[in-house]
């Protein structure tokens, strides 16, 4: 996309006086709009799932903090700084998210890779309707790197948001209460 824009710019500088130069999406704004509309729908679906994943992680972290109150109390009592403690928790949450993402990849990657080379063909009424809209009657998959990289980034952001909870908790920990819990 950006490549097309860039080349258009270059061409325009050279030939712009005599010719009109357009990229495909300028010539066919309806198709471009369809792609965007489809994408925006997918963003909403994914957004909902990320919120749920976020709550899942949050619940786990709450549990983790609750069941280790005593342990943390003892650690602080024998001289561990709170900043170091929260650093440990930072690594824990990040690793938790990362391992989850990697496990998700391990399950989905072989499947996606298979589907990239073997698109799911559509038959009957569905196929006819797809053809009517100008699509090939098959479901294609993509295994480009950014599909995966984006998940890592988003899960990282989610875990960072969730991490606020243990961060605040460790600094607010009351030694006496924690030891007696």
């Amino acid at each position: 996309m950006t490549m097309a824009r860039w080349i258009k710019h270059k061409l325009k500088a050279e030939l712009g006086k005599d010719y009109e130069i357009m990229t495909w999406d300028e010539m066919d704004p309806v198709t471009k709009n369809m792609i965007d509309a489809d994408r925006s729908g997918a963003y909403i679906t994914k957004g909902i799932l990320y919120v749920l994943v976020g709550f899942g992680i949050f619940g786990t972290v709450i549990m983790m903090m609750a069941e280790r109150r005593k342990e943390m109390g003892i650690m602080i009592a024998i001289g561990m700084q709170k900043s170091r403690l929260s650093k440990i928790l930072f690594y824990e949450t990040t690793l938790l998210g990362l391992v989850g993402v990697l496990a998700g990849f391990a399950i989905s990657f072989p499947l996606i890779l298979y589907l990239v080379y073997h698109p799911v063909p559509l038959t009957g009424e569905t196929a006819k309707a797809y053809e009517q809209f100008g699509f090939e009657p098959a479901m294609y998959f993509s295994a480009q790197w950014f599909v995966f990289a984006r998940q890592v980034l988003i899960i990282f952001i989610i875990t960072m948001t969730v991490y606020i909870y243990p961060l605040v908790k460790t600094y607010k920990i009351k030694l006496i209460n924690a030891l007696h819990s």
Partner: protein
Amino acid sequence: MIIAVAWRNIWRSKTRSLVILIAICLGLASGIFYMAFYKGMVDQRINTAIKTEASHIQIHHKEYLNNPDKKFVIAHADSVIDIIKSVEGVQATSKRILLNTMIQSPTTGSGVKVTGIVPENEKQVTNLYSKLIEGSYFEEGKRNPIIIGKKLAEKLKIKLKSKVVITLQDMEGNMTGASFRVEGIFETSNTVFDEMSVFVRNSDISRVMVMNENSCHEIAVLLDQNDQLETVNQALKKDFPGLDVKTWREIMPEVSMIESSFGITMFIFIGIILLALLFGIINTMLMAVLERTKELGMLMAIGMNKFRVFSMILLETVMLSLFGGICGILLGWALNLYFGVVGIDLGTWSTAYKSMGFDTLVYTKLTMSVTIDIAVMVIITGILAAIYPALKALKLKPADAIRIDM
């Protein structure tokens, strides 16, 4: 008794229960709202397909749909219509002359589908007259009126009262043409329809084509209710073995597909949401069991049998899920009712949806049966989530559990 205990147990750890409750509530609310949005969109599309474009049932000459040639007419249209009208469930019929041809304005031309209609009959079958944004719907007295779509008017650069020329072959194959005056401009939610369809009076076009007044290419049938589609379809098929009787599902397979794939897609979507929630619920309940090892051991030691322990954990989980689920369903319904009145503007994406025939203002819609289905799915999720924690609880040995140091 067990229910009361289970309910109280949920609220022993407020933060934990609230987190999972909010997750379930938000997840389901967004799922339901998304479903209502698509349901509204699909229903509006189907409504347009029936009310403006295809009607419930269309009847053609056997060959016409394979080869839309003007010579494949339904002869004696009036007697056919009389028979159709006698079938139970038929609300109105309209006979049409169809013609794929060229239309020309002073500046440019375009290929269109000309439909010759009897205005007063057509008015009962399709709601095109209500889609007029300018002009009027075949008022008596004017010669050769034509009604065109907004998109076509823009393409031909013409306005109300402009003259257009339709070039066509008459029934003997001679090239001929007639000029028509634009009497009305309509706009539907389907830009392709607006660009491709023009409407003229049946009597005008049959005169130009030198066609028998009593024959037509298509008879559109509107039913009282969509539920009667199959019965009426079968009855008409039996009445007219020589003609091609088709329902809107066969005429517009793409719309029918949107309807049939909608349900499955949405349930998969809700299923994925519930799957994500399932792990959250398992996690919460597992914690609830582990932190109560001592208490559960004690209960077993003083004689609570395994079945009761199991049902207590099960009830706790199901109640937790269902409570969150009900909150979510209520929230989803509230959103649905609000946007069902206000409507959601598709804004930036309207060009894309209009080209596929969707309205750009979507009124959300939900049915009770779908809601109940979702509630059942939530209960099943709760039961599934309960199994592992409950088994964990059953495996506890009272003697060890009591002595465990928490």
